[in-house]
């Protein structure tokens, strides 16, 4: 299977029914994408697939041929969203953070409060109570 991973063409050999989550973490060695539930309920495994936020724990590798995949690593080290999450303390344990940032990225510039709440409804956080996360995203977008 061949897809574009964080801007570079990548060929992988995992099985067709392997979850994209596992392919990214294990075969590609990119452990920034986290597994929280394995059933698409928590959003910790969120990546961008052709620009759209999806749960990578639900995507079979077979459906990624030629797709553009973006993981948290694809943002580099100094993206405005990453800075804002640090400055606003939008991350405590950090397990939800990569998913939060990628989903936020997919919402485009300056999402309204309603669009932010709706857009992040599939990303659960057990630590922050969400307000700091919203502040971080507002600060960065």
């Amino acid at each position, binding site marked *: 299977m061949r897809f574009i991973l964080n801007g570079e063409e990548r060929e992988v050999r995992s099985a067709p029914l392997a979850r994209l989550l596992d392919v990214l973490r294990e075969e590609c060695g990119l452990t920034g994408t986290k597994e929280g539930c394995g059933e698409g309920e928590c*959003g910790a495994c969120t990546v961008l697939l052709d620009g759209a936020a999806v749960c990578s724990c639900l995507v079979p590798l077979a459906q990624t041929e030629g797709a553009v995949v973006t993981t948290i690593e694809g943002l580099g080290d100094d993206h405005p969203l990453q800075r804002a999450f640090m400055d606003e303390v939008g991350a405590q344990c950090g397990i939800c953070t990569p998913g939060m940032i990628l989903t936020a990225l997919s919402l485009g510039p300056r999402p309204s409060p309603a669009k932010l709440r709706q857009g992040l409804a599939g990303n659960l956080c057990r630590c922050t109570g969400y307000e700091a996360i919203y502040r971080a995203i507002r600060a960065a977008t």
Partner: protein
Amino acid sequence: MLRDEQSLVPLAGATDLYVSLNAGTLEGRRFLNLWSLPSLRRIVLQGDTLSIGALATYSALITSRLVRARLPMLVQASRQVGGLQIQNRGTIGGNVANASPAGDTLPVLAAVDAIVVLGSADGERRVPFNGFYTGYRRTVRRPDELITAIEVPAVGGAQWFRKVGTRAAQAISKVVMAGVRGGAPRVALGSVAPVVLRLPGTEAALADGATIDEAVRTLETEIAPIDDLRSTAEYRRRVAGNLLRRFWADTAPA
């Protein structure tokens, strides 16, 4: 391929694949990948009929000008499926084929008398949506058929939709209702029986000018809710009646 290997399970957005596999409830082990078939994603108007490709995702339905104009309650339903990540992958064809009694788009399609278009090597056939389910998670789709589109005739009247779940997102419904009021009222309910239901008795009562109390009593005879993981029969019965009252009050002529 489906004709030759009938144990192949068609796979669209795959939002339920690993969930069922892990739960041991998925019978198939070999899958037919439908994800990259652009011809099944189209949303078009054919005369007065809205034709929605089976692979249209919830996100596509939400942003479609045609769906927003002609079937806004499908947009409402789609916005309440899971979260953004599920909406970006789940498809209307998958929701219909998966045949859960709690499927969020199902009452909408039932209330508007939609048509399911089935394609196979032998050609195409059309089945009324309100005839597609024969029992719990059972449909009339043959193993060699694919759902290719859902067709929705013009809807005359006000559309109404409400999903009651544990929370506003990422929840399977306890009760889900869709209604159309204009001429003869149409009411459909999910999560109160093994399949999505239309309520012919309740619809007739309302059309004949019964009081809403009488209509709710009729509704209670037409549903068969159970106690399960998510709710109780008693709660479902009560809330279904409340939803009928809300539907009737919200859509009353000004």
